[in-house]
């Protein structure tokens, strides 16, 4: 088990990576060697399985190439005028979170070292029908800050922000979720970038201070590290920083020019960022932890958070057709599609996981090739890819992060289904306190997979004995099973190692 109290240095490693360019080039060579041999030179087996395999591998090629393209240079200097100052409205968005939690954020916001800013508590507790909405008003009164409580709902968080925009007037708006506590230097470190009139928003990492509480918080954060480390730093180079909805500052004029925060999408931030880029605005990612938030502490909250993100991102693909949107540069189109299409990876994970199962039950295989030959081209490719991931993230990328991403295939599939069927999901704020219970129903597909592997292996062995093909397929199935077991373990009741929470301040 990792140390519960990681050092500050360890926590910041993801922000100071250097891309190993030689390794990236080697990775590309091995990727193409693997893909070309697989797609064009190996005899095919079952055509449907082969088509599925190749479709999955095409997706992997896309994912890896866009990742490598993004992280190629993560150290692009961004110009700023350190002396630039302007009035800022600080929005703290609240939708039923406990007042004590909001109070901490509020206190930190008030303590920010900046000459001219006004704090607003955007209280959506009333429209969200939360019992504690008046607590927020009382809190605002106690601290002498403005509280804007909506009486008419709509548009979820985006609606809340847009409502506040109409009632405030500073040229810049800083936005924090209720649980994201800003550092004192937040505005000093972000506002100077706006000296460039084309900069529409400045985003900082969405760091989780409760990272070390349990396996779920660790997993949630470690997934974020790759994104807020090399990926976001790379996006800076391409003027394609992702707007994340919190720990950010937006230029009011720019936001108003796109009609405010996008209320049509569940991923309001992601879509709004894209609209701003369409208008030709610049975006900046500041690779420094300037605010600290909370990760979901239980499986259900994690599931809901991931579903919301997946649903929103897929929405962008299917609803906004990012590749064909006018105004975006080609790198921006690629970046938006790459980020959003991550949530399609669930399809590929399940497809790859099913290949050994299909073999167990039917004997059908996608390709007819000596397993050693496949190993010879696959292993160098996968190990160099893993090492590139490690190196580019300054060795912060973990097995847990990988297992969480792969096991989230069920969430991605549910989100995809929701998008395809047009089901309107409710916007739900991620719970800030740990929910306990049995969440195994959320991982039934993972449990079913493990059970089917056991049955399938028995069927296959009774059909053809212990052969090389069965062992190779069994090894693949075990690989998937071990990864899925991480999720099953965390969804089971009372399995979260609930040590005393340790807040880590960076």
């Amino acid at each position, binding site marked *: 088990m990792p140390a519960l109290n990681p050092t500050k240095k360890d926590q910041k490693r993801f922000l100071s990576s250097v891309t190993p360019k030689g390794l990236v080039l080697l990775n590309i060579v091995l990727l193409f060697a693997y893909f070309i041999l697989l797609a064009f030179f190996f005899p095919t087996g079952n055509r449907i399985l082969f088509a599925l395999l190749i479709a999955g591998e095409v997706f992997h090629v896309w994912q890896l190439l866009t990742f490598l393209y993004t992280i190629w240079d993560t150290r692009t200097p961004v110009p700023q005028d350190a002396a630039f100052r302007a009035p800022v409205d600080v929005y703290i968005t609240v939708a039923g979170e406990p007042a004590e939690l909001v109070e901490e954020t509020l206190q930190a916001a008030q303590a920010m070292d900046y000459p001219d800013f006004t704090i607003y508590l955007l209280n959506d507790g009333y429209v969200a029908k939360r019992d504690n909405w008046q607590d927020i008003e009382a809190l605002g009164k106690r601290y002498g800050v403005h509280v804007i409580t909506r009486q008419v709902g709509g548009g979820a968080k985006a609606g809340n922000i847009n409502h506040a925009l109409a009632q405030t007037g500073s040229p810049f708006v800083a936005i924090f979720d209720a649980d994201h506590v800003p550092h004192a230097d937040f505005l000093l470190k972000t506002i100077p970038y706006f000296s460039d009139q084309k900069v529409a928003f400045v985003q900082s990492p969405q760091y989780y201070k409760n990272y070390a509480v349990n396996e779920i918080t660790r997993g949630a954060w470690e997934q974020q590290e790759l994104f807020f480390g090399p990926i976001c730093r790379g996006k800076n180079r391409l003027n394609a920083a992702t707007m994340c909805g919190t720990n950010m500052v937006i230029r009011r004029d720019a936001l108003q020019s796109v009609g405010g925060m996008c209320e049509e999408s569940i991923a309001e931030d992601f879509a709004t960022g894209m609209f701003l880029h369409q208008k030709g605005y610049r975006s900046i990612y500041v690779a420094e932890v300037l605010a600290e938030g909370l990760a979901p502490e239980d499986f259900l909250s994690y599931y809901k958070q991931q579903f919301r993100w997946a649903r929103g991102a897929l929405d962008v693909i299917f609803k906004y057709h990012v590749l064909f949107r006018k105004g975006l540069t080609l790198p921006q189109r690629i970046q938006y599609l790459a980020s959003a299409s991550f949530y399609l990876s669930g399809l590929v994970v399940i497809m790859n996981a099913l290949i050994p199962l299909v073999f167990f039950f039917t004997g059908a295989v996608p390709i007819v090739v000596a397993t050693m030959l496949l190993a010879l081209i696959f*292993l160098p490719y996968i190990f160099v890819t893993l090492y590139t991931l490690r190196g580019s993230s300054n060795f912060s990328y973990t097995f847990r992060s990988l297992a969480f991403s792969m096991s989230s295939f069920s969430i991605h599939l549910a989100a995809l289904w929701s998008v395809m069927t047009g089901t309107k999901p409710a916007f739900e704020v991620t719970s800030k306190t740990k929910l306990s219970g049995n969440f195994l129903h959320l991982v039934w597909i993972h449990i079913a997979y493990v059970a089917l592997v056991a049955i399938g292996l028995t069927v296959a062995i009774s059909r053809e004995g212990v052969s090389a093909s069965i062992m*190779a397929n069994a090894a693949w199935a075990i690989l998937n099973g071990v990864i899925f077991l991480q999720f099953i373990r965390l969804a089971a009741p009372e399995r979260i190692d609930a040590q005393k929470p340790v807040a880590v301040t960076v």
Partner: protein
Amino acid sequence: MKNLPPFFYKYKIPLVLGALMLFVISLSVFIFSRQSLRLDEAQSLWQTSRSPLKMFNIIAQDVHVPFYHLMLHFWQVFLGNGVATARALSMIFFIAAIPAMYFLGKLAYNKNAGLYAALLLSVSPFMNWYGNEIRMYSLFTLVVILHQYCFIKLYKTTDPARRRSWWWAYGIVSLFGIFTHYFFLFSIVSQGLFYLFNRDLFQPGDFKKFLGIIVLLMIAFSPWIYYVLKLGSISNSSPLLEAPTSVNIFNTFSQFLFGFQIDYVNTILVSLWPLLVLFGFFGLQKNKKPSSDTLYFLTALIVPMALAFIVSIAFRPLYLSRYLILSLPPLYMVIIGFFANLPPTIKKVFQILLVVLMAATLFIEAFSALTPVKEDYKAATDYLMANAKADDAIVVSAPFTIYPVEYYYHGSSVLSTLPIWDRASYGPIPPFDSATLPQQIATISQNHQNLWLLLSYDQGYQETLRLYFDTHYQRLTVMHFSPGLDLYEYKIRY
């Protein structure tokens, strides 16, 4: 462990290393030494029984370099001939390699890693096999371990006086190395590559020293190369190797870890390769960067294999697991480096699992009659001595298998080879020619009643040969002694 007497903790390391050495000696005495002489061993004995100059002449026409043979020659001069005596020399190198491995592991990682490295080497089925064979492979392993130790010392030592000493040690070990096996050059190439990509680890001026040593090695090695080229018959050496495939690469890994198992078991083991991907995933541990030493060992593991494979495909097949034994210590070190980054519980499980698997396969390799590399020429010749009569002919094929047969056979029958090979004449073994086969058989079988055909080391014509005898003569007996070693008795004349 907690209740052990205090002196154990004081002398833990020598005690553990001593126990490991005792373990391999016991295995050698009670199991491996009782095995029959194998072809390669018989060749070593035959080659080293000549005078040093004649021996050089023979070895220069073979695929090896003379350091080990020279040692074996004088070893036998002082301690006497015999399989056990000759094997003891290899065992000494193997035993010496165990503490050497410990010190390498300790230098690269820590004391416990060193002990685990020594443990892996001791239970290694591959090492135990070659630690008991009259060939240069255990010496090669020892030299490679020392060479790697010196190399790592070069970039870990900062004191100039000590560095000078390590450069000397590095140069001397390299000199022994290039005269131990041609593949030792791959070890130097690996280190050169590692240096190129990790120059910041070294001191200014190291490149010149490295180049200087290479030049000196080339000068020292050039007379031998000149001699080999002058004789010009290295390309005729037998047995001939086939061009390697991906299977050979995975078999090498499998053999380094689990020794020589029957094809079925080996196939099952290598088919589990996707689990390597899972192990790779497990290796993704937060803030755990592979050390420079692990990266060096990875280079020393992969580069020789890759070079041997490429050369085998592009020029001449020379890919053999035993030639690549120089990659075995780095493989174990890479595994240890990988384990070091795992969470403690998983690390312990993997460590125990690996040792248990290696020990189990070691015992299977040692005790199973089906072990594919076993060559029971002793049983075959014992049988011949008991059953072949003075007027019988004994024919062995492939021709070079005459060495172990000749070593054991002291009966009265005439020994010949097919194709007929006159070892006194200069040049390679004559190729098989089906057109002249009847004539050769007629020459051999002249005046003999029965002919015993001992087939092993199929060079591509074994089945033709057997079918010829089966269709032209009456087969009386068939005996199987070990994998690929079969004896047939034919009635030649009535």
